[in-house]
């Protein structure tokens, strides 16, 4: 009965995949709970938090800035082309601003930082796991959740909104440069149009999203690194998994957050 056997192994494969997914979800939930708890409980390690702020925030500025600039510039061209079909080229400044601030600034910035930071956190913690440095921390009376995970979570959650805000400004500048140099907008009118249409809620919703993305970025880096498999291969897999899972979670949570802002 080869067909029956094949069907059985097919079912077994599905079962194994489902069980694996449940186990991962469970262990991620436990990890998240423990990490967040340690964020709020002393002792804290201010020097570590500072180091991570520098590394996650400051050193991501070039990546986020360049991403935002070119996105804003490209957006201006596209909206001009699209707007021309309705004789509505004048919407370029306001739509570039709203698009950058509400959506593209946080999401593209988040994805770029995910590639940079999730990967490096996962590689670092994974190497520490494989070389027993995480075990060594424990034997030196230091809780790895407090010393390694909590500072990274705090730093990323704080740094990401700032990065997104900088990205918003640079993205709008990108649109401004293309709008004035290429599309013939009057500089003063472009800036006026940008300001007059942006609301506080546009900006704040984008920054809240960025904070959530920052949390996801650090969480996935830490989770994958902390549970890294053995050897160089294990660290490599942890790094890939961190970037992929952070990116997908950013896009998924972006939709959910948009729904929430939309409903309110």
């Amino acid at each position, binding site marked *: 009965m080869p067909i029956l056997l094949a069907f059985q192994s097919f079912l077994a494969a599905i079962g194994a995949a489902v069980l694996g997914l449940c186990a991962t979800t469970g262990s991620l939930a436990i990890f998240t709970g423990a990490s967040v708890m340690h964020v709020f409980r002393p*002792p804290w390690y201010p020097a570590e938090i500072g180091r991570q702020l520098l590394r996650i925030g400051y050193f991501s500025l070039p990546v986020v800035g360049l991403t935002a600039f070119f996105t804003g510039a490209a957006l201006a061209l596209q909206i001009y082309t699209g707007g021309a079909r309705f004789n509505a080229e004048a919407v370029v400044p306001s739509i570039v601003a709203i698009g950058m601030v509400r959506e593209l600034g946080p999401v593209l910035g988040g994805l770029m930082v995910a590639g940079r930071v999730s990967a490096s956190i996962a590689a670092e913690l994974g190497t*520490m796991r494989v*070389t*027993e*440095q995480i*075990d*060594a*921390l*424990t*034997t*030196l*009376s*230091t809780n790895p959740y407090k010393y390694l995970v909590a500072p990274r979570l705090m730093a990323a959650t704080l740094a990401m909104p700032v990065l997104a805000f900088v990205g918003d400004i640079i993205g709008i500048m990108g649109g401004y440069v293309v709008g004035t140099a290429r599309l013939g907008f009057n500089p003063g009118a472009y800036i006026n149009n940008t300001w007059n249409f942006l609301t506080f809620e546009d900006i704040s919703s984008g920054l809240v999203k960025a904070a959530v993305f920052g949390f996801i970025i650090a969480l996935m880096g830490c989770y994958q690194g902390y549970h890294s498999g053995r050897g160089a291969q294990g660290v490599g897999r942890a790094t890939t998994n961190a970037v992929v899972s952070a990116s997908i979670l950013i896009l998924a949570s972006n939709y959910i957050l948009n729904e929430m802002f939309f409903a309110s």
Partner: protein
Amino acid sequence: MTGVTDIPRIEMRGVKKAFGSKRVLEGVDLTVAKGESLVIIGGSGTGKSVSIKTIIGLIEPDEGDILIDGKSILGARGSSRDALLSRFGMLFQGGALFDSMPVWRNISFRLLQGRNRLSADDARDLAIEKLRRCGLGPETADLFPAELSGGMQKRVGLARAIAAEPEIMFFDEPTAGLDPIMATVINQLIRQVVSEMGATAITITHDMRSVVEIADQVAMIHQGCVQWHGPVSDVENSGEPHMDQFIHGREDGPIEAVR
């Protein structure tokens, strides 16, 4: 046979541990008295490192119990576990130095944490003193672990393990990768730590010279169990075939050469 002194400092009772389907420890029973130096020998991959990690609590055993001063420590959480950990010092087989910080911060890591932490200057001085005891000069203090040779990393790891002068110390292959002279320095250091500081130590080694220079008691682990346990004076004529084969490094005997 009553009184406090008869309670062993460390006791493993029927400890079992498997990783997936791979059974590593199959009922390890081991006792170490206070102020005693136990050396664990055994083929590579027999679970020596796993044994001491179960004592420290880095690996949770599947079955059995671990007792320190007669009290089970398996359920210890929170502050009681912190109190316990502050009594332990451990040298890892691979050194496990923190590569994000210089050598001196590695050594005084524990002393730079907590309420009674040392100032950076004091911690640095203390680190240099510990380095000297491990046969390393003060110029090593400002290097990063990646700049050290394997043997130097081992000695920095040792300096870190003894820095806070813990009561119970674990040394996983302290002399592996060291030249014979350095090995003697390290063996004497471990012996000193036990004799002078009154610490209790468990050392894992493959080096028979280390066994002779460090041990009060010797235990041999084979196939997940303690095959032989006795005073170091009995090692040469234990009358136990596994022991005989191991200490003389013979290829033929009850221990298979291919594992």
